Each structure stands twice: as structure tokens, then as C-alpha cells.
């Protein structure tokens, strides 16, 4: 428990964003899942997350983008929904245990198999591309869905495995 109030603020923003997300994307989400949500939901793959998604959080992508980790490390994020583990002193990547915790944290912001309803994908995506990045304190991290990093994140949400196959 890092903070009792700041998370409320962040959570309030998160809730607003989630409400927007549901209003904006629900019709598409329903069409894409073609059935009850979760009925055929893929499993999120930890190894894919660790090797293809987690590095994005630490990547300096351009001068117009601060690294995700700068704001989302737990000591900066006040216990908000996407609070990442602090890197160990002197380390350039998380420990196995920390990565598993990050996986759990980020998985809560995902509707497996449904990118349109996954806040993890929509929050950093530019509004011009259908995202919510104008309400994201880190701004427009991805200008479009064509961004290779965003594509990796999407692939994880869709259940792609580290070995290359997707599930189910």
C-alpha cells in the first residue's frame, strides 16, 4: 500500500477511462469476440510477456516519449493500476519474481483476446488512432496501432505464445 489517496485519484481517472473505453469500444468488442466474453478467451503467456512486452516498459523509444517505467514504477505511480516493480539497484531488468508480479499486474488491465476492450492497449494509444492517450499522463506513447511495440502488446493480449503460436 503505497498511498491511500493517490491511488483513489488514479483509480478515479482509470475508472473514467474505463467507462469511456466501454462506451466507445463495447460494440466493436462484442463483434470481435462473437459470443460471451471469456468463452474462448486465450491464456496470456508469461514468457511472451517477459521477452516481448516487458522490455517495452524500459525502452527509450523517442525524444517525445518518456519510458513507461519512469512514471509506472511503483514509487512514482502511487499504487495506481499499472504499478511496476522497482528495478533492483544497478539492474537493467527485473528479477524473475518481479517479472511474474508485473505479469499479474498488467494482466488485470487486459481482456484476453480482445484488444478493443483492453485498457492496457487503449490507454497509451493516440486518440487519433482510437485510443485514450489524451487522458494518459504519459501521453501518446503510440501514434497508431501499426507501431511495432504496440503490435507486440496486442499479440500478447491475443494469446500469442513465446514460441510463436497463438492460443487457443
Amino acid at each position, binding site marked *: 500500500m503505497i498511498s491511500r489517496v493517490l491511488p483513489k*485519484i488514479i483509480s478515479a481517472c482509470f475508472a473514467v477511462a474505463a467507462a*469511456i473505453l466501454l462506451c466507445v469500444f463495447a460494440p466493436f468488442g462484442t463483434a470481435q469476440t462473437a459470443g460471451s466474453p471469456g468463452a474462448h478467451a486465450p491464456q496470456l503467456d508469461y514468457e511472451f510477456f517477459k521477452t516481448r512486452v516487458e522490455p517495452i516498459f524500459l525502452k527509450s523509444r523517442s525524444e517525445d516519449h518518456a519510458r513507461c517505467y519512469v512514471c509506472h514504477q511503483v*514509487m512514482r505511480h502511487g499504487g495506481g493500476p499499472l504499478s511496476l516493480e522497482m528495478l533492483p539497484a544497478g539492474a537493467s531488468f527485473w528479477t524473475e519474481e518481479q517479472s511474474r508480479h508485473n505479469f499479474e499486474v498488467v494482466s488485470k488491465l487486459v481482456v484476453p483476446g480482445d484488444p478493443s476492450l483492453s485498457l492496457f492497449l487503449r490507454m497509451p494509444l493516440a*486518440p*487519433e488512432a482510437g485510443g485514450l492517450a489524451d487522458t494518459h499522463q504519459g*501521453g501518446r506513447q503510440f501514434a497508431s496501432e501499426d507501431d511495432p511495440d504496440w503490435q507486440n502488446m496486442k499479440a500478447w493480449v491475443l494469446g500469442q505464445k513465446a514460441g510463436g503460436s497463438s492460443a487457443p
Partner: protein
Amino acid sequence: MWILLGIVFAAVPLVAATSRIYVTNRGGTTISVIDPATNKVVEEIKGIESPEVVRFSPDGSRLYIANRSVDVLYVMDRKSGKYIKKVPLSGWANDAMVTNDGKLIVVCIRNTGTEALDVGALDIIDAKSLEKIKSIPVRRGLHDVSLTADGKFAAAGSPPGQSITVFDLQKMEIAWEVQYDQGVLPLIVESNPDGSGHRIFAQLNRTNGFSVVDFATHKEVQRIVNPDEPKGFGPGCEGISHGIGIAPDHKTLWTNSRPANAVFAYSLPDLKLLGHVSLPETPVPGKAPRGGGPAWITFAPDSRTVYVSTCGTKSVSAIDVEAMKEITRIPVGEMPDRISTLVLP
């Protein structure tokens, strides 16, 4: 009389030409510098990840830059852009201010990282030695800070602590506090003509308006709520009122509102509503636009133009005070944040 007027008007371009507006682009790694004479970005400071705020030495030779990525205060030579020093801080810095005499830099620390809760502090740096000479701990993290004109007191707001803490900068200790039932966001101190504190105007995270604290009694004496119209916009990227400032001529108070997606102007000292100016919306293809998320506020030195950073639109709005309308929208970097005016001597 005409000679006097001539001097005044002749001085206006000079004033405009000798000031700069610094905008931290917190979602990126740059600081945009706007020339208020042209309302164009004339410089970009690069390589500072997630900059929080830029403040200045009184002679304009130094920039003091707080950022989110490392727990230091960058001291930069303004002309050369070279670092003079990186002053270690007690934790993650949010806001900073410099006393009018230039002797002290106060930095509010959002999280010292010393405990599970986000414990805050006010770091005090001696501007001559560029050493941190004191760190005054507070219960919870601090967000914004403002000083009395005489430099004797600093007032800082805490969102998690739901409080304003006023620090005595001579004794270097906490002087008094005001407790609220909601988080405190940006605030500004109104000073008396002798430079002592008169009132604090503080934005609260669940109030579409601001609180008024009397400096003499240490109590909230008024809570101003913005008009219901305009309305219909969400809270944007942070709290619902997130930017407040007093014009340099001390005649007006400007406070933004995210539900209104507008900035409201109040007269000083009587706090009568003068009007509002609507701010940029964020276009969303195929959908209704969202509010632009107005953030911090600053002014041209002659008080004729108000500048509002709008975090969702990557822009700064320049507002003509007399006409009460946006005259220019200046594109800046990602998620523009705190915004400050440098007046060059």
C-alpha cells in the same frame, strides 16, 4: 501625460521581447521555450526525461529543472545549455520555486521512498553553494509549492495528505497546516503589498473551483465553486481543477476547470467572476470530442496574455485577457505540464 504614455507603449514590445515561457513536456524528454512576443516555440531543451518544472534565478542566467526520472535538481546555464550541477534531492521532485531574492530554491518532494506510504518533504537548496541545506519531512507527498513575495514562507499542497503545509523558510520548519477532506492540487499564494502572505488559493481534487485560506488565521475562509456552465467534459488526465495563477498585475486570478474545459477569471481582491474562456478539445474520430485537459497556468509579464498548457492536445493556449479569447494555440511536446515565465532583466 502623452510622453508618459509613449514611454509605456514603447516599453511593451521590450517587455514581451525579454521574456520566455518554459513548458515541460512531461510525457516526453523535452522542454519547449515560447517567445511571448511571437507566441512561437523558439527553443527546445532536450534530453531530460519526464521534466516536471523549470524555474529561474532572478538574473535569468540559470534554469532549475526538476524531473520525474532521477531524484536530482538540474541546474543549467541558460545560455549555453550546459549543466552547472545536478543537486541530489530527497526523492521524486514535483514542483520547485525560487525566492525573489534568488537565495533559496525550494523543491517539493512527492515521494522520498523511505516508507511504504508516499512520504513527502520540502527540500531547501542554497542557490549559492547549490547544496541541499535542509529537508523538512511531511506526512505525505507534496505536489505544488508557492511562496510569499518576501520569501519568508512556502505553502505546499499534498494530494494524498489532503492538506496544505506552510513552511517558515527562516526557521526552516513547518509553521502551520490546513487539513481538508480531499486532495490538494495546484495552489498559489497571494501576498500583501509588503510581501507577506495574505491568502492561499488552492485547488482540491473533488472541487470544481478552489479554496481560500487566510494567511493570518490559518483557516479556510471561503470555497469558490466555478459556474455550472460550460460542462460535460471529463476529468482529463488528473484532478478536475488543475491549474491556478495570479496575474503579475495582481488584478486577476485564473483557475482552470476540466469539467468545463475552460479557464475562469476572477477579480482580485474581491473574487468576483469575470468570465471564462473555453479551451481546446481533443478531437476523437467518429466520436464527440473530449476535453483537452487544461493544466498549469502562467502569464506574460504585462498580464495581457494568459498561457494554459493543455495536456491532452499537446499545446499551449495563449489567451488575450482583454478580449477573453484564445488567440493562439502553440504546439509543444507530449503531455505539456507545468509552465513558467522567465523575465529577463
